[in-house]
């Protein structure tokens, strides 16, 4: 079933066309990769998908609902979650509080004020902690976690609301191979519950994770296909695979 349909997205900054008439689809339970050299427009495309910027034109449908002009808040409430490139977690708060923050986002304000859901989410937190291997750090301040653990915490927070679509912006940036492998496993688990879009530099990681890969270059998607198809694509080789 098709989860996300983005059609003819265009976004310009002054004379610079960052995203040029791009279309993209993601099915539920599908892991889609988006690769391309820096400056190819993949970050801008991601930003229009998550609502950080609004596209100049084009349509984005999540579960058949038009979201292209929605605020990030409403997108989040319609089932979209994002993990940013730099882990954006609440460093001053404990891991538990971070997870609670993600879980309680849709609790009513009165409910929050009277802390009605403080313990209702305990079991969810336990599950997330064990899923993401964070049991030992539950009362540690998130800012004191290792770099990898911070990334996992953010993925856990993104997964907390059981989103339909998860956007991951460079989930393995700066990770060691071991951490990278663990991240891959986490994403595989997550993929059973939702559709995922991964924006990555690391082609190897993308290749091992994704069902389908989009290659962007100079604002356009130049190729779409399975990892093996992409590897054979001449155009992709030209723009991308000459690089390591």
């Amino acid at each position: 079933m098709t989860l996300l349909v983005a059609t003819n997205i265009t976004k310009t900054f002054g004379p610079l066309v960052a995203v040029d008439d791009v279309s993209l689809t993601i099915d539920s339970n599908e892991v889609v990769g988006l690769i391309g050299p820096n400056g190819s427009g993949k970050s801008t495309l991601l930003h229009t998908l998550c609502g950080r910027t609004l596209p100049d034109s084009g349509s984005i449908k999540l579960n058949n609902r038009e979201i292209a002009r929605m605020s990030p808040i409403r997108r989040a409430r319609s089932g979209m979650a994002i993990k940013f490139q730099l882990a954006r977690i609440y460093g001053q708060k404990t891991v538990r509080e971070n997870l609670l923050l993600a879980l309680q986002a849709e609790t009513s304000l009165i409910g929050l004020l009277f802390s009605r859901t403080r313990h209702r989410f305990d079991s969810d937190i336990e599950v997330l902690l064990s899923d993401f291997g964070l049991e030992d750090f539950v009362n540690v301040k998130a800012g004191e976690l290792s770099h990898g653990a911070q990334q996992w915490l953010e993925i856990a927070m993104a997964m907390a609301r059981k989103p339909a679509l998860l956007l991951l912006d460079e989930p393995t940036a700066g990770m060691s191979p071991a951490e990278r492998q663990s991240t891959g496993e986490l994403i595989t688990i997550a993929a059973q519950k939702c559709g995922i879009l991964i924006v990555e530099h690391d082609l190897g990681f993308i290749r091992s994770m994704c069902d389908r890969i989009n290659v962007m270059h100079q604002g356009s998607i130049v190729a779409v296909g399975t990892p093996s198809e992409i590897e054979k694509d001449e155009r992709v080789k030209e723009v991308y695979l000459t690089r390591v």
Partner: protein
Amino acid sequence: MVIKGRNAAAIAIIVAIAAASPFIFIFGNDYITGTLTRILILGLLVLSVELAWGQTGMFTLGQAVFFGVGAYSAAVVAKDYGITDVIAILSVAGFAGLIIGLLIGAFLFTGRRVSELYVALFTLALAYAAQRLATSWSAIGAANGIPGIPFPTLFGLKLDSGPILFYLALVVFAIFFFICLWVVNSQFGLTMNAIRDDEERAEFFGYRRQTIQVLVFTGTAGLAAVGGGLFAITEGFVSPSLLGIALSTSAVLWVVLGGKGTFLGPLLALAILQILDRRMQDAFPQFWPIAIGGLLLITIVFLPKGIMSIPQVLRERKSQRVLRHSAPIREDIQ
């Protein structure tokens, strides 16, 4: 657990003040009780700045506007309408603050996100405009303000002596202090902090950032206004300086000196400065205002988290020498 500790501190403060208060009856006079009363009243203003800025990241340099709105509405109600019941006066004051706070909060925080500095300058200009307006508005006494506000009553009993007014302020302060603690320790408080630490991240979780900011801003306006109302009925006068830049920046100064992000620090800074202020002003009248500026500057430069962070700073100095474990490598990513 942390919460328990915080509450313990809060309870300790209230109990200590309450325990000390009989001595005020025995040894104190109206000047000393008046000073303590004023500390408690300004404490409400400090709490409101701390809630808005320290807890939610809304850098308000104009919080005295709401204090003044509360004070003026209490003065008008008590003097012109002859309503002296404390509960009625404070309700009106608080309500007036809530309305003005809601209007300004909605104007500031709905729509496009604005930066913290923008909020600061906006509220500063607001304080300027408000004092201006009060100074020119003859219906509320213009520059002279409103003097001769009658003593308040409670269930028909006249509250007309220093110690009684002190207890009134203590009770009101305690009520709102606990409400503040309760809010901050609730899940809502966690959300406030989340907005303070990373507004955008919170939005991407689906928090209605605008609603929460407007709500908190409105609440703090109401809190400051209750303080203003209390000021009007205990001091017996209001003047335009109550809603101006000077008091607004003083409130921020107390929060900075005490330590943004804590309740105890700012209240402590307020208490110490209020007690020191008169003594120092009499001892070094020419020097004291300059010293306040110097103190602020030194604090900002060398102790950005205020006096409450002194133990922490000392601890960190020590632990810095113990190098941390070799954490995972992290490239300087964009």
